[in-house]
């Protein structure tokens, strides 16, 4: 905690809060008409991104036992959607394709991993009953697919909800989704517009189960892909320029740039200085701040979960309290961390505090939902202790604690990704340095920083996997629980 900068720096947080509250109770419904295309784009990006991610992830899942595939998947999912969008911006411009790819690529890595884990847990016995010479596809569709389908569907629909959040947040960096108008509204203090956008987003997510019908999904996906493909205009020159020039370390390009020949050089000592400077001045402090933020958020998430899950647990709270806390948890977990952090940043000014609160409240709400779900499965015994505190500590908590820990460590990597990205909002985590590098058009530096961010994430991911396998909670639980 000592290492973190948690000061409140704002001109007048109380006035700002009053203005926001006023905006929250006076949503400007007329403005919704202006935002219709942003709402539609949010949906289109999410559908196309998820669909392409599922397609890629499905193929990769079948080769997931190969180490290179596993590493590639781990790498692509360790880079946040916003960083992917940053990378695609200079290549394909600020358009739908950029947004869709920014979702599809990391999601393919995630789907590959989860699908492969689900595949691994199938019961081999039914395959035994199939005729020996059946084609591979027939065996898969009759012996494997029916077993895994419910879980695949469950996880994919949960991921679609995540994609809606990603899609909305991508607007903050300029893509034409909901986040774009949200950012504008906040920046200009139009809180009635901001609130109507957030309410529309909540409504979109809350209404999913009414319109996201299994049979209609292919129709939605086809329509989305059709819309997106209209923007398919690649500039080969931009791409080549980016890949063979922009991302190369500056010392390699300087000579050729200055004399106008665009020749590449390879000055080893200057390259080393280039690397050392970035590493010492940006990578190290960025990693340190990201880690500090993540660890504080992790601890606070755990605490918040343990404090809040009883209010949604049948043996510990009455029906009115449960209903009420359910609603609060839904709001916290439906709002993307990025938007939460943005709002708190407006209130409290730039410090780690908004990020800590945003990450831990969002993740705490998810974990409280899952943990109370588990606690509600515990059969209530007649002879259980009468006092609620006794019941909590001696009856409920010991039974859910190991799965709570497993979920917490499962979110660790997610929190890390979020901590890094929130730097874009001005906290000195890795995202801050990456964002600055992009805005100064220093692609080489940005790429180096992104690579280190990915590396840090992959390390955390493998540590968390090791811890979770020690706690021994199957991935099945995570996939189901994740569908909060």
């Amino acid at each position, binding site marked *: 905690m000592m290492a973190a900068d948690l000061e409140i720096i704002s001109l007048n947080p109380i006035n700002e809060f009053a203005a926001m509250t006023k905006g929250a109770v006076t949503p400007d419904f007329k403005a919704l008409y202006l935002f219709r295309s942003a709402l539609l784009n949010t949906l289109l990006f999410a559908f196309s991104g998820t669909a392409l991610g599922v397609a890629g992830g499905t193929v990769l899942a079948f080769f997931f036992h190969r180490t290179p595939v596993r590493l590639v998947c781990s790498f692509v999912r360790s880079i946040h959607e916003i960083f992917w969008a940053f990378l695609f911006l200079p290549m394909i411009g600020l358009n739908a394709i950029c947004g869709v790819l920014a979702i599809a690529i990391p999601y393919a890595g995630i789907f590959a991993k989860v699908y492969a884990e689900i595949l691994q847990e199938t019961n081999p016995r039914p395959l*035994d009953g199939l005729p020996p010479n059946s084609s591979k596809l*027939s065996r898969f569709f009759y012996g494997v697919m029916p077993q895994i*389908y419910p879980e695949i569907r469950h996880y994919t629909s949960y991921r679609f909800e995540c994609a809606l959040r990603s899609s909305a947040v991508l607007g903050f960096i300029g893509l034409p989704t909901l986040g774009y108008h949200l950012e504008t509204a906040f920046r200009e203090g139009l809180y009635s517009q901001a609130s109507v956008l957030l309410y529309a987003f909540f409504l979109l997510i809350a209404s999913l189960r009414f319109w996201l019908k299994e049979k209609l999904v292919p129709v939605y996906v086809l329509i989305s892909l059709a819309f997106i493909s209209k923007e398919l205009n690649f500039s080969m020159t931009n791409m080549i320029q980016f890949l063979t020039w922009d991302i190369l370390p500056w010392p390699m390009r300087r000579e050729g740039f200055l004399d106008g020949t665009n020749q590449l050089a390879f000055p080893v000592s200057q390259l080393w200085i280039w690397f050392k400077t970035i590493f010492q001045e940006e990578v190290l402090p960025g990693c340190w701040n990201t880690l500090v933020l993540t660890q504080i958020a992790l601890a606070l998430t755990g605490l918040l979960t343990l404090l809040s899950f009883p209010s949604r647990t049948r043996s510990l709270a009455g029906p009115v309290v449960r209903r009420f806390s359910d609603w609060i948890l839904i709001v916290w977990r439906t709002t993307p961390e990025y938007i939460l952090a943005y709002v708190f940043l407006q209130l409290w000014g730039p410090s780690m505090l908004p990020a800590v609160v945003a990450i831990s409240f969002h993740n705490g709400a998810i974990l409280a939902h899952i943990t109370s779900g588990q606690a509600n499965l515990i059969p209530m015994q007649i002879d259980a202790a009468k006092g609620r505190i006794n019941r909590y500590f001696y009856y409920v908590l010991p039974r859910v604690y190991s799965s709570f820990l497993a979920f917490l460590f499962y979110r660790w990597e997610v929190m890390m990704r979020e901590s890094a990205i929130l730097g874009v909002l001005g906290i000195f985590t890795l995202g801050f340095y990456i964002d600055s590098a992009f805005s100064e058009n220093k692609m080489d530096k940005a790429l180096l920083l992104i690579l280190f961010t990915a590396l840090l994430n992959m390390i955390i991911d493998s540590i968390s996997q090791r811890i979770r396998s020690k706690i021994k909670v199957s991935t099945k639980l995570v996939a189901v629980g994740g569908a909060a």
Partner: protein
Amino acid sequence: MFHLKNVTIAYSGQPVLQEINLQIKRGEKIALIGPSGSGKTTLLRRLYEMEPQHSALVHQHHALVDALSVFHNIYSGRLDQRSTFTNILNLVKPQKEEVTTISNLLKQLGMAEKIFEKTAALSGGQRQRVAVARALYRQGSVLLGDEPVSSIDPHQAETVLNLLRNSFQTVILSLHTVHLSLESFGRIVGLRNGRILFDLPGNEVQNSHLTRLYQT
């Protein structure tokens, strides 16, 4: 048709079948009997591996896909005889002629009304009848059945056994109980501790044979 000469099979050093000598001719109806752990399942699997293309196997554990309907589980018996496209087509929408064939089979087994029910919802006896139906649907010259009527109630078990015996040219079944009329099998093979204790025509098996087979 099957020719086993001095076959020994061991799992992790533990012999399951020892020096088995067995000749099975086309058209024979054989019952394998013996206490549990005597090697019946291993022997049946060994025979299946010798002729997988022409055999239908009823698994001891039924090997059904719980998430699929009764229809699809039975249909899966002929996956190798249909194109992948037809298989997927039937998965999405069961085709009329297949439905007719399979519902006729189910009628004989007394569960025609269950055709489109999820297998997970069935009782143990019903699941076993689905496994039997799959073998009947698969057809072939040999039926290998690993205790195919163990969870079916006795008066129905006799009907199912007859159905199986009459639908295949060569039939080799293991049976968990000897009360089922052994006389109707041409040949009885008694297994104990992985060895063949006796191999006799059905009408020559005496009570003394059975006592020796099952003694503790």
